[in-house]
């Protein structure tokens, strides 16, 4: 889809995190359209709806009520309709288990939520500008966890 | 019956039974053999006595026989009547034969009897009176009688086969002689 803006979606149950996210993208000099959802159910409902605009990059929090990020990831990867969506896991924890599971389920990148706003902006801009086609081919576990 | 299950006791029992049996047997044997021994020696002495008796009787018979022969020979010389002489001769012949039979038996039985035919005759009675003739005849008769008596005794006491045959053979003959002698006596008695 060749648009001049990038479609970004975030699913996160934390209000503050959603605020940081949108503020960060506001300040990034990239043209983006950001959508946020409060939990996994809202996200999947939207994605599965008829006239949904599928995002280019989807940021998934892991610890969400009703439907966790991992479950959403599984569902998305099972649906061929969503094959072009690049999925970045956006989580507080950086436990081996979570990294492993999400890597195995086919997430494209794992981001540990930074505690500094400047770092956050840098990370987000990096992520959305990755050429995902190119990136996916050479993906391995070492590159999976984003280092900053 | 529990005891019999135990091998050892069974063996012991059998052993004791066998031992008792053997000891009874051997005692029995010993007693029997002793009896046998006694019987044997008894038989032996009996046989010896029998033999001695036979020998004695046979000797007496033979002596008597010789006397008879002598007497009859002498009588033949002194008697005139031919018929009596004939009788006498017959008697002599019988007794000579008897003497031979006796000798045969004697040799078989290892009894020694005098062999008279070879001994010469005693001629002392040739010249005798009539009375003496009668005496002689009577003597003859008693001797022959005696012979019969001895024969009888012999037949009673002897078990020997030879003797028995002899006795049977002789008995009738000697009886015959006795009769002949009696005849002679009668004839002579009627004559004188």
């Amino acid at each position, binding site marked *: 889809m060749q648009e001049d803006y990038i479609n970004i979606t975030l699913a996160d149950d934390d209000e503050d995190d959603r605020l940081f996210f949108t503020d960060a993208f506001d300040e990034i000099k990239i043209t983006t359209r950001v959508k946020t959802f409060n939990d996994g159910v809202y996200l999947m409902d939207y994605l599965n709806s008829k006239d949904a605009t599928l995002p280019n990059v989807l940021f998934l929090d892991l610890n969400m009520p009703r439907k966790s990020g991992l479950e959403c990831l599984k569902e998305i990867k099972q649906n061929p309709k969503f094959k072009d969506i690049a999925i970045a896991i956006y989580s507080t924890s950086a436990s081996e288990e979570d990294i492993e599971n999400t890597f195995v389920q086919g997430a494209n990148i794992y981001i540990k939520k930074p*505690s500094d*706003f400047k770092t956050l902006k840098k990370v987000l801009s990096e992520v959305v500008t990755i050429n995902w086609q190119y990136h996916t081919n050479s993906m391995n576990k070492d590159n999976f966890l984003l280092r900053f | 019956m529990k005891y019999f299950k135990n091998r050892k006791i069974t063996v012991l029992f059998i052993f004791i039974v066998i031992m008792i049996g053997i000891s009874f047997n051997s005692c029995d044997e010993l007693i029997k053999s002793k009896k046998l021994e006694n019987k044997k020696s008894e038989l032996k002495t009996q046989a010896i006595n029998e033999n*001695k008796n036979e020998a004695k009787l046979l000797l007496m018979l033979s002596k008597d026989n010789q006397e008879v022969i002598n007497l009859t020979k002498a009588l033949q010389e002194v008697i005139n009547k031919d018929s009596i002489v004939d009788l006498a001769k017959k008697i002599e012949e019988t007794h000579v034969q008897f003497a031979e039979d006796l000798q045969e038996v004697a*040799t078989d039985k*290892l009894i020694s*009897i005098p*062999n008279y035919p*070879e001994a010469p005759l005693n001629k002392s009675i040739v010249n005798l009176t009539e009375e003496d003739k009668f005496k002689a005849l009577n003597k003859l008769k008693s001797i022959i009688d005696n012979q019969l008596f001895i024969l009888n005794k012999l037949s009673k006491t002897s078990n020997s086969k030879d003797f028995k045959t002899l006795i049977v053979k002789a008995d009738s003959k000697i009886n015959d002689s006795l009769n002949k002698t009696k005849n002679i006596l009668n004839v002579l008695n009627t004559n004188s």
Partner: protein
Amino acid sequence: MIKTLSNNISFLRTTLYISAFVILVVGALTYRSITEVTKSSELITHTYKVNVELEQILSNLKDAETGQRGYIITKDSVFLEPYISGRSKINNSFAELKVLTKDDTILKESLIKVNSLINKRLLAFQTSYRSLPKGDIEDPNFIENFRNGRALMDSIRDNIKGIIKLQNNLLKQRRSEYESDLMATPLLLFSLLLCSLILMYVAYNSIYKNIKRLKATNEELEIFKESTNQSEIVSKHGSWTYNVKRDEFTYSDNLYRLLGEQPQSFKPTIENFLTYVHPDDVEKLTMQVEQMKENIELPYIYYRVVHKNGNIKHLKAYGKSVVNEDDETVLLGTTADITDEIISFRILEERNAELERNNKELSSFNYVASHDLQEPLRKIQTFLSRLIDEEEGKLSAKGNKYIDRIQNAATRMRLLIDDLLQFSRSNKADKVFEESNINLLLEAAKQDLAEVISAENAVITSDTFPTITVIPFQIQQLFVNLIGNAIKYRMEGKIPKINITHQIVEAENEDNIIKPKYSHYHKITFTDNGIGFDNQYADQIFVLFSRLHNKDQYSGTGIGLSICKKIVENHKGYITASGQPEKGAVFTVYLPIA
């Protein structure tokens, strides 16, 4: 011991039979010898008798001859007496001889010959005696007769002498036999006696020895029995036997005590025993006993009994079969009271379970706490940074200072939480050991510290490591902590140099290792040229939350080295440190080679 005794008995029996046989044989020989002797003497007597009779005949004949001569000389018929009686005497002798020689045909023939000669002689006597009254001794017939008579006499004498000689030879032969038999008999008797005596003595000896041995064994057995009884009481065991053929049990004294009863207080049957067994276990036990009777063995079985006073005891029983002297199979069994063990085991299990639960709770608490604490902290930090970005110019100097201080505190808290998280991760129960490429782990650790390493231009040299079986992420953490420390506590002005070496060492050669569990260890040393430390603190630095500097000099939580120690302990290894102030420090890690 029993075996040698029974061998002895059969040996004794064999000797008895052999000796009895020998004695019987010798006895039989002796008996035969005695009968032989009797027979021999009888034969001798017999021969003597024959000789005597023959001599008698000769003598009678001589008497007759002498008598005849006397008569010829004196003409007195008195002298004829021996001749007259001679014949009958000779006949008598022959009568005896006849019976004596009944079975000897040769002798009989000789006697017949002699008899005929004697007859001839007697006849010669008669002839000469008859012809004598002529009174003429000069008569040639008479002389002829006389001579003839003499010849006959000689012939008779010779014959009789011949017979006598024959008899004498026979006699001699029989005598020699008799002698030898005579010799043998007492010898045999004596040997018989000797045999019996020896046998008796040997038997007595053997029996005496056996009895003594038996006595000694019995005494030992008594002592043994007593000590077994004692040991049964002390170890809370009871023993029992089961005779397969007779279907009988025997119970030892202590087995009754295990049931809470007095020894031998009831008949040892399985029914009586089952009355004490816990109702839940009765069926199973009955089945097991049935099986035991079939298979003649009892594998380990467990069941409970209830004493009369209500106590429940746990018992364990085991039985093994043995074949005894009379070829009977007997099952020897032991029953042990394992109630105490079971109780302590249960208590132990409970405590363990409790501890594990506690541990798990603490662990998860630790983890969750650190994890959940991260969230608000992150928020604080992010908002702070935003605040600084947005409102920096608008705030007063005091305000800025306060914000700065807040940020510091937040950063410190973050460090603490990170370290706590690390600590809790090294606690996790499910640790997976893998054969890992240590070199890769080292590289990964260096990657984790990439920023700091490049910031300080730290130089890290290392040996090549072999593959070791470890928990990979923990070893990686170990490297991170130790290398991080080395760089953190660098000497000002010096470029931090860290050297990591590897060796395989023997446990007994290393003084650092106390009570090693393995014989060989990997020895990994981390040598740095940092500020070092005083050696007296070598043990203290591994204690949780313990620091040698305050937070203003060097940042730190005091958890890092405790984490290292925990990790090394997870691998059953050791970690030691030694330092020289202002020169540097050496950290040594020992990992066992299994």
